[in-house]
């Protein structure tokens, strides 16, 4: 498949890069990335991946666009209020780049449907806002041997890490299990600065792009944290003891997906 003149122009700033070139751009055009959560993290990630020419982008979210989302979820507009987030996200992505095929999943991700949804994708982005979803995505990706980017944001802080099968710890290696219900406030209760989703969600898109083009070092085996008030980025090296993790370890005790109970006011898509 040769790039068209229009594609050469559209992706010229990519192709010019030694690390990308026409070869890397074609990898992006052939890639399939799933974004779970069309919220604060998923919005910028989806916009950048669509603009980058990722050929197939799946987007999963059960919610509709709400006025209170618009302070940070930049893929949705005021006129989209009431519309399913996945539809609004699809329209924005298609408007940016007609090269992109968008697949929407207007549903909650559960232990019942997640393996079927992730199976067709090369890389998964966790853009959810609650612990049950984060552990479910981790466990499903470990079981299905899918690389994924974890991220979380709250107030003026954010964090992310990348899991690649066999190349480092999973989310559960680091955070054993969800905290007790209501022990940690949700973003709804605690608030979050809008640009935080932009910073961390864009970093997730960056990890996806690097994974697809096979360049650079990923955040495997490390957790990157960002404290916006102090303008501090910290990269923390994570231990990886394969004998111990209940899901990715050598003797896993978690072999079935778990639907943890959600705190009441939580939804997907921070």
């Amino acid at each position, binding site marked *: 498949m040769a790039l068209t*003149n229009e594609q*050469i*122009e559209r992706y010229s700033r990519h192709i*010019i890069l030694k690390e990308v*070139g*026409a*070869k890397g751009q074609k990898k992006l055009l052939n890639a399939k990335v799933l974004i779970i959560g069309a919220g604060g993290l998923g919005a910028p990630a989806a916009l950048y991946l669509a603009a980058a020419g990722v050929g197939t982008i799946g987007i999963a979210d059960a919610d509709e666009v709400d006025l209170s989302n618009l302070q940070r979820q930049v893929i949705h507009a005021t006129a989209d209020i009431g519309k399913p987030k996945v539809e609004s996200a699809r329209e924005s992505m298609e408007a940016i780049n007609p090269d992109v095929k968008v697949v929407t999943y207007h549903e909650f991700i559960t232990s019942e449907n997640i393996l079927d949804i992730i199976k067709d994708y090369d890389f998964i982005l966790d853009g959810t806002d609650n612990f049950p979803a984060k552990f479910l995505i981790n466990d499903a990706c470990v079981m299905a041997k899918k690389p994924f980017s974890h991220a979380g944001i709250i107030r003026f802080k954010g964090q992310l890490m990348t899991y690649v099968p066999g190349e480092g710890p999973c989310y559960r290696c680091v955070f054993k299990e969800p905290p007790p219900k209501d022990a940690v406030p949700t973003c709804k209760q605690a608030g979050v600065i809008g640009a935080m989703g932009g910073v961390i969600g864009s970093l997730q898109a960056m990890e996806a792009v690097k994974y697809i083009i096979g360049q650079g070092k990923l955040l495997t085996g490390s957790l990157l944290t960002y404290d916006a008030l102090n303008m501090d980025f910290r990269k923390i090296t994570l231990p990886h003891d394969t004998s111990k993790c209940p899901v990715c370890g050598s003797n896993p005790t978690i072999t079935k997906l778990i639907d943890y109970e959600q705190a009441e006011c939580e939804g997907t898509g921070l």
Partner: protein
Amino acid sequence: MADITITDTVDITDVVCPVTFVKAKVALEELDDGDILAVRMNDGEPVQNVPRSIKEEGHKILKLDDNGDGTYTLIVRKVGD
């Protein structure tokens, strides 16, 4: 120098920087190691920048011919796969 057999030709006179270099780069990526690409370009900015950028990518510039009509033809040997 022995006769040069041109493998492929690309015309970048209809585009401006940086698409000039990008089109040449894409054409080079389609070729195999040792293949020869002829690139027709406008005088001025393209002649100043495109050969240099191609050289920076590690390819071998063989010659630059003045076509006498305000355009030049750059002959490049692809280095690497």
